[in-house]
């Protein structure tokens, strides 16, 4: 069964919850159940809107972390510090690119590989501590710059959930993913 029918199936679930289940639950007088039926429908609707581009998003995040790993590795190497981390970052970034380049990579594999890179980077940031000079400052700048793009992607991804009042200022998901494809 392809994603098109998944989407149809999901929409049928949402319709059922909204038009059949929720009115019945409302009549039961259980406000928690009524609230949760609406939330379930809302979550499924979000899933239906994003199911097509789930893998694209995973790839964009994976490759962005590989780039960040390169920047941090270079900063550490120039400073001559944490040699084990330099090696670990190189290996993690290489794996990330290999997984990213393989059209057969599953979303779960993409996610696991992304997590490896994120763990190495997080370990380094924690290890460097709060100092704001030298290599610490360079790594902090790289992480911040990377986070700006990552956060824009995350806000666009979750925009249908309407967490932000000024939703018109959120960049379009399609535009961000298109930029990553090119």
């Amino acid at each position, binding site marked *: 069964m392809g994603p098109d029918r998944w989407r149809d199936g999901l929409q049928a679930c949402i319709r059922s919850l909204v038009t059949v289940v929720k009115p019945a639950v409302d009549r039961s*007088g*259980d*406000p*928690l*159940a*009524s*609230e*949760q039926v*609406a*939330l*379930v429908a*809302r*979550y499924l609707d*979000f899933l239906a809107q994003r199911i097509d581009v789930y893998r694209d998003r995973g790839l964009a995040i994976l490759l962005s972390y590989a780039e*960040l790993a390169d920047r941090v590795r270079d900063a550490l190497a120039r400073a001559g*510090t944490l040699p084990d981390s330099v090696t670990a970052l190189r290996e993690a970034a290489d794996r990330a690119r290999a997984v990213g380049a393989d059209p057969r990579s599953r979303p779960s594999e993409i996610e*696991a590989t992304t*997590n*490896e890179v*994120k*763990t190495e*980077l*997080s*370990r380094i*940031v*924690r*290890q*460097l*501590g*709060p*100092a*704001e000079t030298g290599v610490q400052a360079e790594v*902090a700048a790289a*992480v*911040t710059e*990377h*986070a*700006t*793009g*990552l*956060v*824009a*992607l*995350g*806000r666009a*991804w*979750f925009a249908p*959930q*309407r*967490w*932000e*009042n*000024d939703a018109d*200022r*959120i*960049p379009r998901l399609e535009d961000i993913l298109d930029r990553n494809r090119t």
Partner: protein
Amino acid sequence: MSTPQQLPADTAAPASPKAGRLFLPAGRAQDEELRDNPPSWLADRVDAAFPTEDEYRRVLARKLRRRASGPYTVPSLSELRTRLHDFLSAHIEGDFTVTGVRWLTGGASKIQLAFGLTWDAPGQGRITEPLVVRMEPAESLNATSRLREFQVIRALHGTIPVPVARWLDPDGTWLPEPAIVYSLVRGTTKPRGDRLRVSGTGTRFPASLRAALAPQFVAHLAALHTFDWRGADLSAFTVPRVGTTESALWQLNRVRRVWEEDRGEDFPLVELAANWLEGHLPELDVVSLLHGDFRSGNFMFDEETGEITGWLDWERGYLGDRHRDLAWTMLRLFGSHDEETGEFLVSGLVPESRFLAEYERLSGLPVDRTRLRWYRVLNAYQMMVSNFATGYRVVKLGRSHQDVLLALVEGAVYSLAQELLDALEEVPHGARPMA
């Protein structure tokens, strides 16, 4: 340069790390096992690495101890009615009647139940009063103390509108989990017709209601922060020393500890925020009693008169720096924009500059921009940790009655991350550049 603890998470306990540097990797199968079924050493290690207030240490250790007990099943109304009767029997002298036990909604973290109680209240004679049971699920978005919540509500009776705190079951001796019982506050948390938002975020008040609510909102915050807490029974609270950074550090450490205990994946930006916070800890100038979640959605009001009838959700209250409450209230997530001017309104009620000026005038306490910025970073960081780490763990293990809501709140993480970035880069509220 200090060295973080790098341990294979599925093996023996790591040696004690230097404070603040314990790092337990996340994301692999063995990392998940560590957090899903925490060994006894985990609570000891995170406790040693991230010292915080005693009551939080107790509550967080309890959370880890009980985590492996499996998915949470919401008790039936029938079971709760029986348990409630037993609880009240242990606390009320004479006969009483419980009627109309029913679920309440509201909030992402605690179970709430309303009922009517007819009893002989001390000094009041035979009365029938509407009450609320506020009880923890097995785990929630915030591991907090019912004892503290009970104490702070009692302490503030007569200072600002709060429920009447009646009884406490601090360890779940009678009820299935720790709980408090307090009076039902009349009113609503949001105006009629406000579209559905999760957990009271981004409430839009019409101008007429803003005019009525905003002055009370600021006045209550000023009254809270100038309340003389020294005469109150706040035995479950730790008092930080003025002129030191320990208050800020306790708050930072509590969040760092929760990040270690709960997360399912790493996030370098979160680490960067923790480093920045550690490097810029502010000194405390005045010890105030804080609400901890002071915003629209957490007060009830009468829609006809515009009167605030009660402040709820005191679970995050603590003794510390007023800038924590101020910065929390100003979080973009809780605000909205004026429909005519487009100006950002704190909690959907009042422009930021007026909010701070009125607060200073009414409280007589200065607002320090450096401290305000530090707490803005802390608050965004804390909410990211709650939504991204704790929310994930609770949902994965099925530990609360609101798992579907917690699955949704993950979606707020990147809005909060933007707030964090803006705070780190000192971008003012409401002036966020396009990404």
